[in-house]
């Protein structure tokens, strides 16, 4: 059975529904599943809960789904670069569950690994710990965090083979690996699907068992903060 689909719309056929939970890869605008996000906008799915470190910017990435009001709730660690996000949150239109970044990553990893909860010292003594089970281990206090299992994962990788084995590139790996594992269905978009056997099995970052559907396509890969240095004259 081939995992390869012709485009993002086809790859999302039958897996979207109102009120669903989606785990998305990406950090800022780096390594975001931009093709799948656009297809979810076109599908018009509503009341979505999205677990993603950030929510894009106003006109790119997950910010697009904020603009169309398709998102009911975000589970994120940082929203600083998105004015519309802050506006919808402060006006009460958007629900926001702040998760520390490492807690969010581990919640996804745990959910994908069949671990329903784990204890962490992150957030102890802060609002994050309110209402959560506290337990001491070796004289230190930890709080209980739960694994995330999403209805759907959407991730972006650099290359894939038709069996769904994924290779990421540089810091674009970020949340894509843990997010991919925690979805009941995972759809991955890549820049290139290469023939079976052309990826070194020792160099696979995420085994294809986690990936159910696959598309390739051109990516805009927008840069959020372009910082450079001048070449010193010789």
């Amino acid at each position, binding site marked *: 059975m081939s995992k390869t689909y012709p485009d993002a719309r086809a790859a999302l056929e039958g897996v979207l529904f109102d009120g669903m939970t989606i785990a998305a890869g990406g950090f800022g605008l780096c390594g975001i599943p931009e093709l799948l996000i656009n297809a979810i906008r076109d599908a018009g799915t509503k009341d979505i809960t999205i677990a993603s470190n950030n929510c894009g910017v106003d006109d790119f990435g997950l910010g697009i789904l904020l603009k169309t009001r398709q998102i009911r709730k975000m589970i994120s660690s940082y929203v600083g670069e998105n004015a519309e996000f802050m506006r919808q949150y402060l006006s009460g239109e958007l629900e926001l569950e702040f998760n520390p970044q490492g807690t969010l*990553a581990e919640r996804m990893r745990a959910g994908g690994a069949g671990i329903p909860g784990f204890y962490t010292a992150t957030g102890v003594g802060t609002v994050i710990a309110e209402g959560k089970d506290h337990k001491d281990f070796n004289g230190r206090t930890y709080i209980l965090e739960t694994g995330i299992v999403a209805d759907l994962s959407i991730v972006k990788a650099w290359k894939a083979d038709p069996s769904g084995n994924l290779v990421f590139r540089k810091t674009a790996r970020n949340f894509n690996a843990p997010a991919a594992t925690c979805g009941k269905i995972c759809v991955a978009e890549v820049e290139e699907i290469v023939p079976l056997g052309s990826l070194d099995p020792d160099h696979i970052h995420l085994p294809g068992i986690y990936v159910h559907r696959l598309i390739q396509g051109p990516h805009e890969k927008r840069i959020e903060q372009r910082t450079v240095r001048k070449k010193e004259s010789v």
Partner: protein
Amino acid sequence: MPWDRNQMAARAAQELQDGWYVNLGIGIPTLVSNYIPEGVNVTLQSENGMLGMGPFPFEGEEDADLINAGKQTITELPQTAYFDSAQSFAMIRGGKIAMAILGAMEVSEAGDLANWMIPGKLVKGMGGAMDLVAGVGRVVVVMDHTNKAGESKVLKACTLPLTGKAVVNRIISNLGVLDVVPGGLKIVELADGVTEAELRAATEATLVN
């Protein structure tokens, strides 16, 4: 004269020890990498999934797939390794990172840190800061001693939502260096030309000898 941003970063760089893995926060802490003393080899961790963070790229060589935690384009080094976010915070939570240098909105005399939100006004999020302060070996905060109105940001107790409780080891402000010790804060060093009386006047927290 109080220290400026670059002087604070240069002072913070003196905290680095050879062989350490270090995480630098956004803002002034990022500038610390410009002042790493000669002969001191540190590996910079970027919590979005990289060890061995290099300088900004030359113009035209930016790579959208290669950014730091502040979303700025950067470069890799010969010793660079990439990994995913779960792995990144496993090494942070697991105590493998020797030190984090972070910015702050407020710090208390007990070492409490607030740097992620101002209720009703500014909602940014904690990013990786809560994980860092709970997981790394040592936390150094770089901050202005007072706000624009001249009010102390070095307090008896933080007024803003906390990033971590009793997590800060050392404060490097524009007025000097203070350590969190039992009973309050201890003055370690004064910025060039700043008197102890000036630092005391700008500090609400209890100062102990």
